[in-house]
């Protein structure tokens, strides 16, 4: 009962809340946005020609996680209010809801609770008379047998799914066109599922393929961080998105390993490196959507509050993907689009999880800002276009359903097949035969219709060999590829599957070859391996190469014994065998490789590949052969260098030295080729060829030598060990050689005598302000005694502040951070160790200032400043260090307090997959880094300096999970004002506005030519054109701003000379995977000199080039003395209609 007095009071209070919310929704940490759906809807910026309406919302619906339609057009939603963690005493009462738009007006008017009492259900897929539901450890089948819309039967279909992280548990349930139920799990999950076919295990992320009728379960792919989206194109090719990976659309190659896959030796990359993370995936089409939206990929950047769109096109055996302008973008902080599905009316439906807080690793489970009660389904339609008529599939005759397989509406095709699946083989097969026979021979969709028929056979599990054989030779390669995949499912049920695959391995289309190669990998026989490897006779690309590599490994148990027994038939092409042997990477391949080389029939490339494999696997006698080759005067420098590198690795990783006369190496120390000399110098040290000492000293002293040669000679010298080497190194450290040489000598001294080394190092760090001291610090960080000695030696000395910070970063991220050394560096660098001054009051004040005063533009400058060291480890849109998470959408996901806390105390919350691994090795070193991969006898880490370190598994004594690799104290030298700006900048990243990364591929990772001694004179003498190819020039990485421009003020200036103006020179590169015509756009065209692959190009604002497959360099030079100075430069790849070329700009560090 409400009396007249309370109404105005309540209204006033409500109004107050509204004002508060509207004004402060994005501002006040303690506030949450106004949950009114209309306010949220109005925040949407929708793609031209589209509009968004609310289909369903709270209170009928809370926290939708996955949604799927059924054949009746009802929308099933898995929802959880318990997420992220059940509280003691709480009754798990999560629900599967059915939303129904009974009158077809585009709004749900009926909600049924199909099942409650669930615990964090993360997936629902209707079918088989009910629905399959992912319920934490179990996959349930729930059925409504009495037709009241509520489940009354419950069956555990599979159990044993891991729950180590509740946003990783079994999810993304989805029927394939082939009648399989595909299901995903994410990185932390360890699942052990008992089936009548045996136990199936999947540790880490991946996609499962499951047939509910036969209970066959297998792993379709492994890896990715959070595989929260999976869908199939019209021909059944799979694509996945990753909610925590940064590579956009992933083409799913059957059986492939992707980033984070446990035990992956080699991984396949996504198609959009540097793209933000995505959740959900739908490949859309149908008559309601405009022509240019057919086959488009729709997914959600839930961090950045965006619904994204990609166009995927053919690229050899695989695909290329390009991001387009968004379908929806918003600054509404609680808009969390996480699933997307095409509806029965042809409209696009978006599930909005609605939450100002996402994630529970980084944000407390019980954070009061976490929303548990709201949720929306949005319906997106194209303005002025008719929605499609919802078909009554359930009531249709079987013949009618078959006709729907030829419908232009993808929704109808899919759901007709689902209804046919439920009618079963007895009902469907006779009608299907008649339907196939009735397709007119000249129908334009004939092959696609036949493919649908083939899939229908697969769905009802009746083998139809004739149709399969017909489609294996269809004229459309996409249909042939799909048919090969069906053959995989029937490989044990049709005669001579290998015979059927033979022609497909030699198919004209690379994707058909790829599919055939993968199916052969599942038929264990020598013949399958021989046949698969014959794919090498035709052009290869990265996808095919990966597929064949997988197959060679999968079949290793069959063909490898055949090789040693002389039963393997390489068809007279030893390169096939070399490829396979190389893929295996275990010592038993050495002998067959040697035989292949002796046959003399190998191409140069195959021979080098074989030699490198032998070097990495063979024993002393095998390595002797490599040395024979390397010292052979007829070999060219590039090949020689490859072989020498392999010998260096053989010693570093396995301590293997060739047998026979090693002194033959010394002649190479006089080579004119730098890489040869460098490798030979290292080997001379490793092999203790002390009689070349003088030559090494000469190399170190030579003015003309490169840094690489000098440092290799120093390493070689140091490897001799003992008092002589120590004396030589001390002399070099104290000489007037360049800083890098002296630093390297001191670093190597540490290996021999920690105290003497530390003393020399301390002197150099204080005396020489320039030069990179990374290796010098690392040498001390890895060894306790050396670290202690350096701390002592630094007492009373002063070193540059930036250098001290570098040292602190390296030391504090080492396996056993040396607190004494960190303190000594703090003191020597005058940093004062401000880290301890973080009081709650200061934190609060700073948080308040971020929104009131923080300036994102100034913040970006702080971020980009070398001394801040942000880009050392973090990339934006793929450009920058790869050590830490990419930050392009951090502002969309992280609250300001999280951002500040992560800067103050990096260990407080660590992103998935960014936990360090701490590894102790038998040489007494402790290494720390992010695991990149493990396999083939080595563990590869990325350390805090973005270096890849390979550690032989045999040398590892202990390993444990560490915390963040980001050291504390990085922000100690920033003023509070700078910190305010920096946090503000980070908080804007990924939000709609100036700090969201543009969809146009933009050059973000550049190199700038460093101004060095005599450079200006050399340019003057030789001209820039000639200089560009000079390998002795030194370049340093520089990165574009978020907006994609490279500010001139951040670039080194090469001074003018003799009337030639001062200039800056930058370069980047573009990787072409499918050759063709590529269009570039540059700014400011009128001010730039442009070279592509060293050749000048007319600097027009846009220009087209025909480019071959491979890497192409693009360089800009521009005047720094001009009266109207260039402020920034920019390079973009522009879509060129009609061109089949696929190109990507360089990324990384």
């Amino acid at each position: 009962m409400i009396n007249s007095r309370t109404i105005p009071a309540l209204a006033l209070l409500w109004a107050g809340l509204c004002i508060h919310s509207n004004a402060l929704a994005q501002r006040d940490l303690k506030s949450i946005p106004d949950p009114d759906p209309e306010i949220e809807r109005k925040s949407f910026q929708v793609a031209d020609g589209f509009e968004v309406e609310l289909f369903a919302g709270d209170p009928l619906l809370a926290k939708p996680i996955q949604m799927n339609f059924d054949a009746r057009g009802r929308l099933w939603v898995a929802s959880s209010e318990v997420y992220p963690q059940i509280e003691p005493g709480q009754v798990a009462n999560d629900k599967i809801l059915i939303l129904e738009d009974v009158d077809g007006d585009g709004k749900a008017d009926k909600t049924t609770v199909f099942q409650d009492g669930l615990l964090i259900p993360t997936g629902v897929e209707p079918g088989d008379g009910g629905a399959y539901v992912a319920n934490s450890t179990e996959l349930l089948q729930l059925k409504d047998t009495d037709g009241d819309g509520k489940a009354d039967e419950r069956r555990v279909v599979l159990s044993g799914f891991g729950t180590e992280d509740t946003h990783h548990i079994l999810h993304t349930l989805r029927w394939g066109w082939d009648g399989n139920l595909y299901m995903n799990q994410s990185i932390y999950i360890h699942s052990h599922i008992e089936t009548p076919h045996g136990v199936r295990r999947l540790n880490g992320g991946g996609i499962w393929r499951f047939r509910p009728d036969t209970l066959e379960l297998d792993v379709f792919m492994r890896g990715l961080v959070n595989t929260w989206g999976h869908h199939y194109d019209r021909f059944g090719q799979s694509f996945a998105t990753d909610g925590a990976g940064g590579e956009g659309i992933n083409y799913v190659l059957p059986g492939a390993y992707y980033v984070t896959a446990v035990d992956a030796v080699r991984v396949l990359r996504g198609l959009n490196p540097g793209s933000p993370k995505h959740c959900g995936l739908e490949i859309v089409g149908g008559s309601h959507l405009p022509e240019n939206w057919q086959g488009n990929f729709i997914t959600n950047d839930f961090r950045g509050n965006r619904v994204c769109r990609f166009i995927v096109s053919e690229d050899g055996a695989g695909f290329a993907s390009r991001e387009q302008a968004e379908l929806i973008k918003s600054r509404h902080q609680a808009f969390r689009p996480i699933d997307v599905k095409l509806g029965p009316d042809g409209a696009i439906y978006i599930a909005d999880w609605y939450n100002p807080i996402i994630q529970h690793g980084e944000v407390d489970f019980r954070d009061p800002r976490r929303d548990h009660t709201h949720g929306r389904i949005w319906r997106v339609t194209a303005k002025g276009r008719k929605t499609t008529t919802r078909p009554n599939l359930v009531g249709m005759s079987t013949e009618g359903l078959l006709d729907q397989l030829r419908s232009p509406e993808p929704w109808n095709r899919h759901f007709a097949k689902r209804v046919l699946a439920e009618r079963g083989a007895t009902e469907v097969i006779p009608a299907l035969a008649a339907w196939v026979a009735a397709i007119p021979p000249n129908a334009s969709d004939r092959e696609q219709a036949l493919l649908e028929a083939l899939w229908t056979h697969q769905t009802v599990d009746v083998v139809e060999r004739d149709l399969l054989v017909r489609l294996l030779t269809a004229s459309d390669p996409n249909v042939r590829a799909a048919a090969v995949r069906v053959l995989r499912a029937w490989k044990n049920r049709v005669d001579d599957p290998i015979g059927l695959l033979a022609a497909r391995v030699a198919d004209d289309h690379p994707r058909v070859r790829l599919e055939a190669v993968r199916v052969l990998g599942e038929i264990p026989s020598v013949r399958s391996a021989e046949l698969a490897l014959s794919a090498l006779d035709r052009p290869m690309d990265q996808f095919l190469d990966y597929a064949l590599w997988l197959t060679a490994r999968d079949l290793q148990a069959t063909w490898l014994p055949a090789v040693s027994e002389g039963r393997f038939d390489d068809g007279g092409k030893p390169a096939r065998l070399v490829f396979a042997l190389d893929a295996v990477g275990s010592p038993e391949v050495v002998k067959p490789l040697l035989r292949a080389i002796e046959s003399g029939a190998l191409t140069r490339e195959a021979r080098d590949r074989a030699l490198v494999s032998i070097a990495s696997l063979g024993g002393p006698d095998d390595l002797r052969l490599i040395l024979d080759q390397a010292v052979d005067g007829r070999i060219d420098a590039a090949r020689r260098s490859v072989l020498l590198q392999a010998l260096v690795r053989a010693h570093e990783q396995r301590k293997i030295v060739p047998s026979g006369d090693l002194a033959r190496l010394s002649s190479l120390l006089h080579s004119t080729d730098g890489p040869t000399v460098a490798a030979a110098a290292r080997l001379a040290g490793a092999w203790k060829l002390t009689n070349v000492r003088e030559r090494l000293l000469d190399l170190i002293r030579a003015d003309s030598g490169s840094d690489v040669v000098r440092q290799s000679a120093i390493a070689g010298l140091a490897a001799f060990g003992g008092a002589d080497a120590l004396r030589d190194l001390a002399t070099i450290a104290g000489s007037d050689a360049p800083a890098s040489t002296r630093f390297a000598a001191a670093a190597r001294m540490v290996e021999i005598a920690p105290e003497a080394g530390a003393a020399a190092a301390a002197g150099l760090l204080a005396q020489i302000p320039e030069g990179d001291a990374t290796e010098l610090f690392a040498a001390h960080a890895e060894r306790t005694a050396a670290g202690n000695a350096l701390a002592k030696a630094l007492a009373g000395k002063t070193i540059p502040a930036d250098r001290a910070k570098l040292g602190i970063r390296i030391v504090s991220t080492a396996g056993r951070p040396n607190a004494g050394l960190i303190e000594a560096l703090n003191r020597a660098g005058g940093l004062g160790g401000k880290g301890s001054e973080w009081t709650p009051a200061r934190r609060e004040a700073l948080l308040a200032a971020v929104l009131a005063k923080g300036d994102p533009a100034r913040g970006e400058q702080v971020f980009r400043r070398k001394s801040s060291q942000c880009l050392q480890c973090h990339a934006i849109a793929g450009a920058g260090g790869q050590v830490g998470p990419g930050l392009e959408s951090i502002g969309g996901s992280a609250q300001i307090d999280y951002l500040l806390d992560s800067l103050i105390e990096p260990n407080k919350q660590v992103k998935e997959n960014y936990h360090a691994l701490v590894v102790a090795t038998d040489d007494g070193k402790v290494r720390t880094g992010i695991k990149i991969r493990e396999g083939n006898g080595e563990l590869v880490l990325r350390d805090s300096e973005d270096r890849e370190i390979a550690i032989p598994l045999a040398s590892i004594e202990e390993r444990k999970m560490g915390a963040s690799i980001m050291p504390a104290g990085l922000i100690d030298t920033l003023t509070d004002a700078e910190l305010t700006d920096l946090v503000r900048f980070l908080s804007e990243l990924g939000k709609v506005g100036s700090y969201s990364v543009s969809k146009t591929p933009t050059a973000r990772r550049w190199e700038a030519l460093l101004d060095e001694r005599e450079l200006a004179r050399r340019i003057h003498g030789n001209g820039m054109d000639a200089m560009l190819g000079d390998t002795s020039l030194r370049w340093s990485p520089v990165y574009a701003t978020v907006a994609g421009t490279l500010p001139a003020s951040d670039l080194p200036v090469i001074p003018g000379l003799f009337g030639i103006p001062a200039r800056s020179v930058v370069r980047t590169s573009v990787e072409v995977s499918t050759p063709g015509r590529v269009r570039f756009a540059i700014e400011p065209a009128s001010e730039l000199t442009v070279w592509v692959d060293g050749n000048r190009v007319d600097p027009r604002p846009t220009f087209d080039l025909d480019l071959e497959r491979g890497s192409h360099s693009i360089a800009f030079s521009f005047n720094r003395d001009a009266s109207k100075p260039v402020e920034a430069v920019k390079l973009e790849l522009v879509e060129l209609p009609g061109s089949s070329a696929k190109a990507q700009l360089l990324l990384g560090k």
Partner: protein
Amino acid sequence: MIQRILVPFLISFAVPFSSALATEGEPAKLALADNDRVVFLGGTFIEREQAEGFLETRLTQRFPEKSVIFRNLGWSGDTVFGLARARFGKQEDGFAHLREHVEGLKPTVIVVSYGQNESFAGEAGLADFRRGLMNLLQVLEKTGAKLIFLAPMRHESLGAPLPDPAKHNADLYLYVDLLEKAASERGHRFINLHRDLNSPVPLTDNGMHPTPAGYRFIAAAAADLLGLREADPRIEIDHATMAVKSPGIEVTRDSVRKSPDLEFEARLATLPPAPAPPKSPAAIAAAIRPTRVGVTNIDDGSYRLTIDGREVARSKSRDGRLEFSIDRGPDIDQTEALRRVIVAKNQLYFHRWRPQNETYLFGFRKHEQGQNAREIPMFDPLVAAKETEIAKLRLPVPHRYRVSRIEEPNK
């Protein structure tokens, strides 16, 4: 004060009941004592039992006076190596977790069921299995607990499209045989579900794992194999002399009245088995042995039996003899209530020992969300509260029985 007598009565006539067993002779009787701690260990078969609770309920109701605690440590896909428990670690870590969890519970009885998953490796995997089993036994024996092997049941043949299990069963037999020998050598109890389950209908829907009804059947069979078979509870009353015989049932002596209706108060010694789940096959539902009430020397006619005022059976007397067969009523409801509390307790314990988000609570990301780990021990008092309920529910209570004649007006 109500005086009660327990009338000892050994049935001298054969009682018809459907036996779940194909064995001969009476197995030794398992005895559970006060403060026993029973741990169930194994793969999916054990793990799913916790959500059904039939076996645990059967063992609980059989010892109503004993304070026994049951903990289910089943883990899908597990092997004698603890393979499924490794999580982020190596295989050895899986076994270490198994050991830590078992030892932490200080068990006095361990029901262990392995071999099914391992058996997919066929004959070639036997040596490995033996090695793992011996290693596991060493650990389990060290706890001092009584070990009971529950050998895996046969892989059922359910027809296409599911696989033909003939080959797997041949392999599985080798593993069961090995288990049996190991148990006998080391003096452990061995329950051979592989051989001794004799169900007229499938107990699984995938060949491998019991349905709820299947668990109901297996619980009865396993209890029988453990020597826990009880005489069918029955009450015999001579309406002429009012003599009462009631094996396994305590009838309150001065509660018996002859008129106007025959009435008495009785309490079962142990609760009847839990009812079969809804939609169970008839053969499994029939496996429930009902309580019987027989009256002799009574007038011919139709009668109803009510318990606490609720009608539970109707019958007609013939030649002065009336017999009721009770398959519902407050005792059966109480068993079902007991089973539900056991399942609820198991669920709470699951949140305690295998909580979700372990990575953040206890794993390598505990520095982020480890503060929430404090919630996990808060499940302990909730589990304890359920144990209190179980202790109460496992005790049968007296009920008022009343046999009254149904008047047939039109006759």
